[in-house]
């Protein structure tokens, strides 16, 4: 089966763990979906006079997946973002919450099998963590790592299911499409790269009667990252030798008016700066570590606005 023909689609669930009937799937603009369900079985620990294996015991199952995407603005990625934030979109804004209903989703992977196409469907998916990476010259990359409650397989589409094409279908965003509105108070910073990790620290919950998790628990929400700016003045480094608090991180991503994403962390701690030395050929850059803390004004450590001007 040719991987180019694979189709990845998502749909938000109304009931956690249940794919809606006659689902209106949203096609994802993914690079690939990696990760594998784990259904461990281990050799039985019992003693036997022949010293050899005679049986196995079943462990608990986990359903981790990773969806790799370029930074795009579309309906499918909106489902993933809402799951990461644990909150539905409200007036095109996402803030950190602890809502499951409407933020879990089903992930369907369809393989092109010619006569018969295999389908794998993960239900009750929640985004565990996201890594964001922007390097000049390349499209921004987002890796959504998720956990699911279970997996089903099929050889046909769900009755009356539809698959909406990604919309809008603008080009993926690159760092050239990023406007740095505010970066920790630095004057006209020239940013070289940005890496962020956002995590929900999910925990799978198991109970007697099933090897599958019956629920997924939300843990601490953590957003942190490293930004690299060209070393222009001592203050780029020295200002953060002592950890700075209450700093703002505010960027707008995208090239199309009213279809941009704006990511704001209004209360960052910025710490542990470093100046690199690339050797004889190169330029110096300062790396700054930051942690997004609860921001009372937004009632959220991080805020994502879609369809921004």
């Amino acid at each position: 089966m040719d991987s180019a023909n694979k189709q990845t689609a998502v749909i938000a669930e109304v009931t956690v763990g249940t794919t809606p009937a006659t689902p209106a799937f949203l096609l994802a603009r993914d690079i690939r979906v990696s990760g594998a369900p784990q259904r461990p079985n281990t050799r039985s620990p019992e003693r036997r006079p022949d010293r050899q294996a005679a049986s196995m015991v079943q462990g608990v199952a986990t359903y981790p997946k990773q969806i790799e995407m370029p930074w795009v603005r579309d309906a499918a990625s909106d489902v993933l973002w809402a799951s990461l934030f644990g909150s539905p979109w409200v007036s095109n804004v996402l803030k950190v919450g602890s809502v499951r209903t409407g933020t879990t989703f089903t992930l369907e992977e369809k393989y092109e099998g010619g006569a018969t196409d295999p389908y794998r469907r993960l239900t009750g998916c929640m985004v565990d963590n996201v890594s964001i990476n922007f390097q000049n010259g390349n499209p921004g990359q987002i890796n959504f790592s998720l956990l699911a409650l279970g997996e089903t397989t099929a050889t046909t589409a769900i009755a009356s299911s539809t698959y909406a094409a990604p919309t809008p279908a603008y080009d993926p965003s690159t760092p050239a499409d990023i406007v740095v509105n505010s970066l920790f108070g630095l004057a006209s910073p020239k940013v070289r790269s940005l890496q962020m990790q956002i995590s929900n620290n999910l925990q799978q919950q198991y109970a007697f009667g099933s090897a599958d998790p019956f629920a997924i628990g939300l843990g601490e929400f953590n957003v942190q990252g490293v930004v690299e700016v060209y070393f222009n003045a001592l203050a780029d480094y020295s200002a953060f030798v002592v950890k700075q608090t209450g700093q703002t991180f505010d960027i707008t991503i995208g090239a199309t008016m009213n279809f941009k994403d704006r990511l704001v962390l209004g209360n960052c701690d910025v710490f542990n700066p470093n100046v690199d030395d690339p050797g004889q050929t190169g330029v110096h850059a300062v790396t700054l570590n930051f942690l997004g803390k609860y921001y009372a004004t937004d009632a959220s450590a991080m805020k994502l606005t879609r369809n921004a001007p």
Partner: protein
Amino acid sequence: MAAPEIDMETTILILQTFHRFVSEGDGRPERKERYAQGQTIKVSDEDAADWIAKGLAREA
């Protein structure tokens, strides 16, 4: 004698490009049907109601 079955149809305007897979039965491969944004077509009342509810189409 039973009355002939009448296919009720609704004319709709496709608002968003989408596709679906239609089973041909008997182990035959599913057929992919594509619908392009801006297309005006006649479909069964059932499909029309489903697609309108999903925001994929509206009555033309």
